[in-house]
């Protein structure tokens, strides 16, 4: 124990003209912390090998996935496989995976009691919020892009025969590749919308269970709600609907109405959740139990 041993001259002089850290510093710190989380590493590994395992599983059995677009063609063309995966995983699994990070990145500080630690450094609440929010979005975005690449590669490995589109047309390999990529990219806006929703839930509840579990619950709830015969405008307002907007890309003639409206919906949900999170976080009591 050397507390008493010497004086502390090295710490006595304050530094003048020090560059003040900003949201970008917080962002990099959050990414550095994120890299070390076990669940992030597990998800990354699953995203890389999962699609190839799915292709192998499909090859091993002769049955085809029923009740889903492209399902009947999975043994005929490799392009059907990423589309079947997208149709299922995008709406059921992807929001939950994004929430694993986004629904926890704020409430983890509540869980560890570290808000008072990070709020007593040289960063403002606004910078902390921005850095963390962007880090959560980065994870969602990276996850979506990673799955796009690995699912496409897994499909190409399975075979590059032309695939039958949703208008009965035969789509050759080059165009099919393009449509697969565009379909996956079109699911990024709703994924980011769910990311913002996860942040909102975790900021309001200060709990990772609500942040992550809440998104999973809402995902299921939305699937139930879409089964109801809601008017078209109500369907379009749900955050789960834009996940299927790629149907129009594969139709003949292709239509983009659902996709355009989907962008509006996602932007609306995203803005509302981001603004809500900030307003709640801005004035919160930290460090003292009220």
């Amino acid at each position: 124990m050397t507390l008493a041993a010497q004086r502390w001259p090295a710490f006595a002089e304050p530094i003048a003209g020090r560059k003040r850290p900003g949201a970008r510093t917080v962002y990099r710190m959050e990414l550095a912390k994120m890299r070390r989380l076990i669940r992030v590493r597990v998800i990354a590994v699953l995203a890389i090998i999962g699609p190839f395992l799915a292709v192998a599983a499909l090859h091993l059995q002769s049955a085809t996935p029923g009740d889903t677009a492209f399902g009947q063609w999975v043994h005929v063309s490799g392009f059907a496989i990423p589309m079947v995966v997208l149709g299922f995983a995008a709406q059921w699994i992807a929001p939950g995976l994004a929430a694993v990070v986004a629904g926890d990145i704020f409430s983890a500080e509540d869980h560890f009691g570290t808000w008072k630690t990070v709020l007593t450094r040289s960063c403002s609440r606004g910078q902390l919020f921005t850095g963390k929010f962007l880090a959560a979005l980065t994870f969602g975005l990276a996850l979506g892009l990673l799955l796009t690449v690995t699912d496409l590669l897994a499909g190409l490995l399975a075979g590059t025969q032309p695939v039958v589109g949703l208008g009965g047309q035969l789509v050759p390999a080059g165009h099919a590749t393009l449509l697969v990529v565009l379909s996956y990219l079109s699911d990024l806006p709703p994924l980011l919308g769910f990311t913002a929703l996860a942040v909102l839930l975790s900021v309001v509840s200060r709990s990772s269970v609500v942040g992550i579990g809440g998104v999973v619950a809402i995902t299921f709830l939305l699937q139930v709600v879409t089964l109801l015969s809601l008017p078209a405008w109500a369907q379009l307002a749900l955050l789960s609907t834009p996940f299927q907007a790629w149907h129009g890309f594969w139709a003949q003639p292709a239509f983009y109405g659902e996709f355009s409206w989907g962008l509006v919906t996602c932007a609306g949900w995203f803005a509302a959740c981001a603004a809500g999170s900030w307003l709640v976080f801005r004035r919160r009591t930290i460090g003292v139990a009220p």
Partner: protein
Amino acid sequence: MRRSLAAVLGAAAVLAPILSGCGSTGITAAPLQSSISSTFANLYVLQQADQGNPRPSLRSLHSHTGCLKGTPAMPQGGSGNWLCYITYYPSGPAYPVIAKYKVDVQTDGCYAADGDGPASVNGSPTITGPHYQQVINPLALIDGCFDFT
């Protein structure tokens, strides 16, 4: 926290049936008929090519469709089970063929049409190719989507 969650769910449960009345679902006969008509025509051409037969032109098929939900007295709109009859002319204008499909239409404008006759057209899940291989009959199960917006 639990109170506000209960309030939201309660409001949703009340609003949903009310909202169901306000505005069209976008799932009506017209877009379904148009989509299934052209999709069928494309798939018919594919089926002929798979069997090694000469490929007809789309225009010569003159396909058009009538779809019905339940009985004519019921409201003709919304997701669920429809019946579609596709009339087309594979052998010239004097010889119409009517293909029947049981169509399950979802709320997002996508449908799965199960072939229900004639047997030679959409009755069998597989067809025979020119080298006697068995391939999927493209007309047995038709997956398609139309714009419900």
